[in-house]
């Protein structure tokens, strides 16, 4: 896809988002390279989720544009996959795991077509890739948190996108799921897909990601992990709440900041 146009997977120009006149994100300018796993890092309320929602047009922006492979987002929906936060949906909804994964196919079906046999087979393959094939007909409320997260990832795979946005996929999952997600991210990378992941855990950043975007209401720094993920930049991103002890980074539990989690 990129070879035809030479355009980058995601280009954000001058994006500002405001909730009730207070800017949550200010003048975000970004150009994201292809085939990389990219962590979006920043403190609570830094606007990480807001950023990936605004780029996809899910919340109104005060200004700015987002281009996917050289075209406006609205023309490129089929090349974009999205994994919302797990808590954003009602897991008591009457449906099973396979059906949730099938929802990933809806974007390709247009207005009237229903998912067919080929779609079901594809969805099943996606469940297999996250190690959930045995749970295809399991009611979603009967799944553990980690299993629900894997169903969400399988659904994103079913979207067959080039560019993925994942909102905290590692939040509150078990070790098996964490391994499954990392495996999956690396598979996607091998296929030259680009993945942006909202991430919380500073300890694992250099292990999981190639690239990092440090965000706190604005882009503090963005680039390859080795160059950008430095104590100095982290200090800028987290302010006084961060302590760097040798090679270890610690987040102090500073509750006085009083920032609501706008993620």
């Amino acid at each position: 896809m990129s070879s035809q146009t030479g355009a980058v997977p995601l280009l954000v120009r001058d994006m500002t988002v405001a909730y009730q006149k207070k800017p949550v994100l200010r003048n975000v300018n970004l150009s994201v390279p292809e085939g990389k796993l990219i962590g979006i890092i920043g403190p609570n309320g830094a606007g990480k989720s807001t950023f990936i929602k605004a780029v996809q047009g899910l919340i109104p922006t005060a200004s700015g544009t987002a281009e996917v492979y050289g075209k406006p987002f609205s023309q490129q929906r089929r090349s974009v996959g999205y994994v919302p936060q797990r808590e954003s949906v009602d897991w008591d909804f009457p449906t099973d795991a396979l059906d949730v994964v099938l929802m990933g196919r809806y974007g390709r079906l247009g207005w009237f077509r229903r998912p067919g046999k080929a779609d079901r087979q594809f969805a099943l393959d996606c469940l297999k890739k996250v190690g959930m094939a045995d749970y295809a007909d399991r009611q979603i409320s009967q799944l553990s948190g980690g299993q629900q997260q894997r169903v969400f990832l399988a659904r994103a795979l079913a979207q067959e996108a080039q560019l993925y946005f994942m909102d905290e996929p590692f939040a509150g999952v078990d070790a098996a799921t964490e391994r499954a997600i990392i495996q999956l991210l690396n598979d996607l990378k091998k296929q030259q897909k680009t993945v942006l992941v909202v991430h919380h855990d500073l300890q694992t950043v250099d292990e999981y990601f190639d690239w990092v975007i440090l965000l706190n209401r604005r882009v503090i720094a963005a680039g390859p992990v080795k160059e950008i993920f430095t104590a100095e930049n982290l200090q800028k991103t987290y302010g006084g709440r961060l302590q760097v002890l040798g090679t270890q980074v610690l987040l102090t539990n500073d509750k006085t900041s009083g920032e609501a989690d706008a993620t």
Partner: protein
Amino acid sequence: MNTFWIILTGALVAASCGFLGCFLILRRMAMLGDAISHSILPGIVIAFLLSGSRDILPMLIGAAVVGLLTVFIVQLLSQNGVKADAAIGVTFTALFSVGVVLVSLYTAQVDLDLDCVLYGEIAYVPWDTWQWGGIDMGPRAAWGIGGVFLLSLLLVGLFFKQFKLCSFDPALAAAIGIPVVFFHYLLMTLVSFTTVAAFESVGAILVVAMLVVPSATAYLLTEKLHVMLFISMGVGVLCSVFGYLLASWMDSSIAGSMTAVSGLLFLLAFLFSPRHGMVIRMLARRRMRLGTN
């Protein structure tokens, strides 16, 4: 024959409400359905005054306009600092009261009385028939609710995947380009239509029961959305049949008996549902206790 028409009309009302009610309760909007069912009253009265007739079409339009206005006002209020449940409470009582005032002001012109608006009178349904080309086509109410039901089935059937995804995960729906707001208002339009068509038969209060109780019952009995829709409609039909039998046995209000039956069916589902049922869970607990001893 009258019995047949009453049961048919009741069954269409209950099935139609139960069908849309499933989407309302899954989106946690049962109370918004409640609000619409009340607030459409001024719409009906104004349509009535303007058209001077009890034709279904102007009433549907009036109800849809006010129904959507309700949804819009509720959204506006809750986005501007009013709590969602308070926003619903304020909006529908305000609009309903306007309706009540209008009805009492124009009682001379309006052939609607408050008792009928609140409680409906399904027993009179067979006498208000629709004449078409000199042929008696049967009760007007049955045609009205039947047509609206058909429209709901058609639209939801056609856009089932959109309605499902908008209910389960609106964020993904929006991301892949489904017009979430459009489908929200489409659903609310159908709810307004259904409510006004059901109005004459069961009244504003019992419509709410029909929107919520059959679908809540179905929710307890299945784990598949399309099965839930069918069960909900089936429960609606049972309510109508057994409600009528109960009412004629006790010589009481038909709409009231229908609702009582729906409550009873819900209770049965609550006690004996295969997965959530109280009895099953109690038995399972007991078995575990005996097993450990």
